């Protein structure tokens, strides 16, 4: 049983008449998760083929250390780890928004076709245009955004209900993966290897470009969500009631869905279609905070921790061979979710 009222606290900035609502449990959990993610970040910078102790890592970050140490930690591992955190947070928030609006745990950007769009776009660049690097990012972005726009437009005609979003998305995703298969068949061997790694979602060789893409996205989206996020509390009450409580409009619903699509698109552009994170991060969060809708900040922290943790595992488990991170997120995320589900059933919460 939860004590909502005792759990809620308000932060007032009296001078400006500002009041914000917070929940104690989710604030604590969010802080803990971000601290863990920060811890894994520190580990990620030090661990690998070139091992550094924590103190040495900090020294290198502070500007000390040899040229090689600087290269490994700051030029190679730092952008990778920061991209992991940003991408994880973006996927987590994107999934949480969509799942809450649709009141359906299956609605996530992967399921509704955003990732398939990004994959198709990226593959088109790799195989047809022979591009890499920035053009790959652009191709993925264009694919994801176009798909997202198509899904929203088609679903919009019919009231943006949760089921329709899922069905339309699944249909579009199926068409796009046929297209992706076709491109793969046409491609030559080297391109296929290159594409396979990208298609699983990989954080290898991330640089300033990728950090800039995801950091820039979050810098724009976070303020937007600070303003719009509170509307999720009524949007998840269903179409009629939410519109009655917001004066008959669907504008905010549309803005939030667009925000979720953009987040997933940018994250996919930066790291490839890392599977499962957007689907599972909000669900893990929900089990950690039973009795309340998934807070976006907490879903972001869960997503960030999941991705950076998976990436560290992907680098270390089969060293010196590195796995793409997308091959590990499912392996780590699914058991966590299953464990939480089993525990929830024992305590008596319905999943």
């Amino acid at each position, binding site marked *: 049983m939860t004590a909502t009222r005792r759990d809620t606290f308000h932060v007032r900035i009296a001078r400006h008449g500002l009041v*914000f609502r917070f929940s104690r449990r989710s604030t604590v959990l969010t802080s803990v998760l971000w601290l863990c993610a920060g811890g894994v970040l520190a580990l990620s910078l030090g661990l690998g083929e070139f091992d550094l102790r924590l103190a040495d890592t900090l020294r290198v970050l502070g500007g000390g250390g040899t040229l090689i140490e600087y290269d490994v930690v700051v030029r190679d591992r730092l952008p990778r780890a920061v991209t992991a955190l940003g991408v994880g947070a973006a996927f987590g928030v994107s999934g949480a928004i969509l799942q809450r609006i649709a009141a359906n745990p299956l609605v996530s950007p992967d399921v509704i076709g955003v990732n398939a769009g990004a994959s198709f776009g990226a593959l088109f660049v790799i195989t047809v245009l022979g591009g890499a690097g920035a053009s790959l990012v652009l191709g993925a972005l264009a694919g994801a955004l176009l798909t997202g726009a198509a899904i929203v437009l088609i679903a919009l005609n019919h009231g943006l209900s949760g089921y329709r979003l899922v069905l339309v998305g699944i249909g579009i995703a199926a068409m796009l993966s046929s297209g992706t298969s076709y491109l793969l068949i046409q491609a030559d061997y080297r391109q296929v290897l290159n594409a396979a790694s990208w298609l699983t979602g990989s954080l290898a060789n991330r640089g300033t470009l990728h950090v800039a893409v995801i950091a820039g996205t979050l810098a724009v989206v976070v303020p937007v969500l*600070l303003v719009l996020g509170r509307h999720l509390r009524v949007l998840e009450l269903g179409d009629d009631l939410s519109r009655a*409580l917001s004066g008959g409009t669907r504008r905010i619903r549309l803005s939030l869905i667009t925000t979720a699509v953009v987040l997933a698109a940018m994250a996919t552009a930066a790291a490839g279609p890392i599977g499962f994170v957007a689907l599972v991060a909000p669900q893990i969060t929900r089990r950690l905070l039973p009795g309340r809708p998934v807070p976006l900040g907490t879903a972001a922290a869960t997503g960030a921790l999941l991705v950076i943790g998976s990436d560290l595992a992907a680098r270390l488990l089969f060293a010196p061979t590195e796995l793409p991170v997308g091959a590990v997120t499912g392996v780590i995320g699914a058991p966590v979710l299953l464990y939480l589900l089993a525990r929830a059933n024992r305590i008596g919460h319905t999943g």
Partner: protein
Amino acid sequence: MNPDSTPATTLSATTLSAGTLSASATATTLSTSDLTLAYGDRHVVRDVSVAVPPGRITVIVGANGSGKSTLLRGLARLMAPRRGSVLLDGRDMARLGARTLAQRLGLLPQQPLAPDGITVSDLVGRGRHPHQRWFRQHTEADSAAIAAAMEATGITDLAERPVDELSGGQRQRAWLALALAQEPDVMLLDEPTTYLDLAHQVDLLELLTHLNATLGRTTVLVLHDLNLASRYAHHLVAVKDGRIAAEGPPADVLTPDTIESVFSLSCAVINDPLTGTPIALPRPQPR
């Protein structure tokens, strides 16, 4: 006190508290003029001109699929009029700002869905949405309205219970509390008594009557039970195929002829010995 098992006692508790919910200063008028509503090509509400009496309880009755819910959705601006208009205090609702409308008009849909596992107080608190801004997510008025709404509906003791663990009657009260916490001038309720047993139906309608009497809030309900509608309505509107078949005080509307034409049901109408309002008794059909 367990509000679910003791419907008869809840009223005395609410008498004390309803006064703290702010009463509408002047009762709001809601009316339509030649209103036509449609889903695609299907015209479901046709040329309806109806005036909801301010400060009173209006009950809409009609057969399944006759357009009652659609009319209610049109009144709440959830559907744009195909023709005609909805007027709030004489002004075209289409031109009202979203926030203003949400503060003045509340709608409880037929089967509202609560997010998994949320508590009663969390649910009720969401009724305050139109009064809050992103930079002002809580005020004293919010606390007061939420507390008063829960007290008026007798669910204060259930505040921390998850909504999905409540009984049907308790849950319906929680939804009503959400609508009350919104403090709208006009409340539109779509079949708020569905799935309740008779005692809880009466209980809920008594509660609505009481709130209406103390707060003077204009209330529009859709009800299935003709006899309950007759007992609790000040104004009765009978809908047939998307048109108003009859409207007025229950005594004028609930006639054998109207019932025959609206529900295709042959009835005798007698006076309720307890209240004097009409009661419809379906005639046994020869086999």
